[in-house]
């Protein structure tokens, strides 16, 4: 089943590879992955949707939390969270369908970001499932080209991020 994992990690080369490596070495397919900087430029926030054997879900989270660069990995699959995705869609449409396309886009809360004689470019954000329907509807009006951002998630109950304090090197030796 699909698991939604939210991670906060250090914004460092290789950090992404460590996280994805944990999944690929177990043969799990990543459905989507987004990563970007947080308010703190030294940190990134990542959302992964991945097809994980249900018995292995907590093991995967534990393994991620063990990664040195990962500050916190959380399973959002069944906890209160908002999950959103962005779709950019380009549609070629006939003159007579232009109004209908705009109306349909409006129903999904879409916004036209480019308009030409050939058609429109439209952006929509929403629940990933809803966006699937949007793409289906648009496809019925003409040829579409679609880019999806992958799911972005934020937990609704705030978990305080606990950072480990610096360690003086004096205590390291001996």
């Amino acid at each position: 089943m699909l698991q939604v994992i939210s991670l906060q990690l250090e914004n460092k080369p290789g950090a992404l590879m460590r996280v994805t490596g944990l999944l690929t070495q177990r043969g799990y397919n990543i459905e989507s992955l987004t990563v970007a900087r947080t308010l703190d430029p030294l940190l990134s926030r990542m959302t992964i949707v991945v097809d994980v054997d249900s018995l292995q879900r907590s093991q995967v989270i534990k393994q991620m939390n063990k990664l040195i660069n990962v500050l916190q990995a959380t399973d959002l699959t069944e906890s209160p969270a908002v999950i959103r995705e962005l779709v950019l869609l380009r549609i070629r449409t006939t003159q007579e369908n232009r109004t209908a396309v705009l109306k349909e886009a409006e129903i999904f809360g879409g916004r036209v970001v480019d308009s030409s004689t050939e058609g429109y470019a439209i952006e929509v954000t929403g629940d990933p499932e809803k966006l699937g329907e949007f793409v289906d509807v648009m496809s019925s009006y003409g040829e579409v080209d679609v880019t999806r951002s992958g799911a972005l998630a934020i937990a609704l109950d705030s978990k305080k991020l606990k950072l480990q304090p610096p360690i003086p090197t004096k205590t390291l030796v001996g």
Partner: protein
Amino acid sequence: MSTLMSGARMLAECLAREGVDCIFGYPGGVTLPFYDVLYEHQVRHVLVRHEENAAFAAEGYARATGKVGVCCATSGPGATNLTTGLVDAMMDSIPIVALTGQVTSKLIGTDAFQEADTFGITRPCTKHNFLVKKFDEIPQAIHEAFYIAASGRPGPVLVDITKDALQGQGHYVPVTSIHLPGYKVFTEGHTGQIRRAFQLISESERPLVYSGGGVVLANAAPELREFVKLTGIPTVNTLMGLGSLASDDPNYISMPGMHGSYAANMALTNADLLIALGVRFDDRVTGRLAAFAPHAKVIHVDIDPAEVGKNRNPDVPIVGDVKRVLTKLNKLIAEGPAPEEKLAAKRRAWQHQIGEWKAEHPYDRSTSDSEIKPQHLMTEIDRLSGGQAIVTSDVGQHQMWGAQLIRFNEPRLWINSGGLGSMGFGLPSAIGAQFARPDKLVFSICGDGGFQMSIPELATIASHALPIKMIVMNNGFLGMVRQWQTLFYNHRLSSVVLDCFPDAEKLAGAYGIKGRTIEKPWELASALEEAVKEPGPYLLNVKVTPLENVYPMVPAGGAINEMVLGQPEPAVVG
């Protein structure tokens, strides 16, 4: 305070600061600046003959002492050759730091000479790794590497350093602190859970301690011994935990698992409580998981949260350093009441039952009048060691017979590749162990297969006159594979015959080492004594019964109480 120096010198300074006294390595193009510094530096470099053996030697050093072992290799092939040793250390949680050279930062990604993506290749082979492209990042990376390697659940850490970083000149400012905001180490153990563990222990009628490599790594053998002394609970040590409870301790049963003893496996199967300490419920111990310790509640103490509940859901999970957890548990037990007579009687019956199992099917120590049986060889090594020598082992039948029949009365004496099962480990790990413990008698036992993977290291042993007693258990086969082919592949012995082994006397002699081959049982005791008396290294090639199999044996995927106790039918060579 700062001094102008090269990145390579900073590296050496940081190693010295970490208390490194020797590193095992092999130089090459991009590590030249570092080797130039080592030319006159307090950190001693031991030149091995293959990078894989540098990693194994570093492991031997770490396993014998608990200190971080260090190995070093150049870029490209040097680094890729290290990887088996890195994975080996990963599987057995051995703290080592590997230093590799990388091509100049501007050349990375250009398919430069001896370039390989070491950082990428070793990501899954290490606990953590670093790619350092600037000289001023070296000190931070090195101190972080040592800290990560040794703390929490130990493991290998690799630092890949570009040639220009080694050459770069700048002010060296000693690092005063490291910051790893996401690196969590759980040491104390939950007080409430420790209390619950205490409760379960004081109610159990048939308790059993199942103690593993984690107890060795945590230097918790004294606490384990105290626990066993206080409670009188029978104990099994896993392959990785041998010696944490002395083999001679009256409460010690022996090793459990695929080639464990009848008594150990029966005790696991019949216990009502497992006190699992620093173990990971490995498949070689548990056999079929569903049938493993089916009547037992489980207390699982491990420093790695991901191990707790990974293979078996414990009734009492305790994430913490087993040394500290045992200290707290021991205090509770020492202060608590002695078990009531009714329970004490049941405990005595349990101990008695285990004693009966031990007597029913002890390990096979049989000898023969005409041949040297492998069990005879291990029994003789045991006699000379008296539970006190370091024994490094390669992988295969000799490893299992060694683990069964040689006693270890202290931890860190039995050094073997447990998780990864890397052939070629036995000899180089002995080099590391002997450097770490020059005071100790070190046996290195190998099969004729594994020994031939390590022959080049005879040069390292000779050039440092390391007094390692190299014992080859020579049965002319890749014995363990042959055993499986015999038992599970209808005796079809495919590619397991080692029909050529060099003349040991000539081979050793070519390196200026004493060597001898024996094949008669009456030669064995005196030949081993002669090897031990020899002040330098000694190669003893012992021709043993060719077709002997290791028993007991739990077939892969079987329940551990369903052991094959002996040879089912005469084996034939096909």
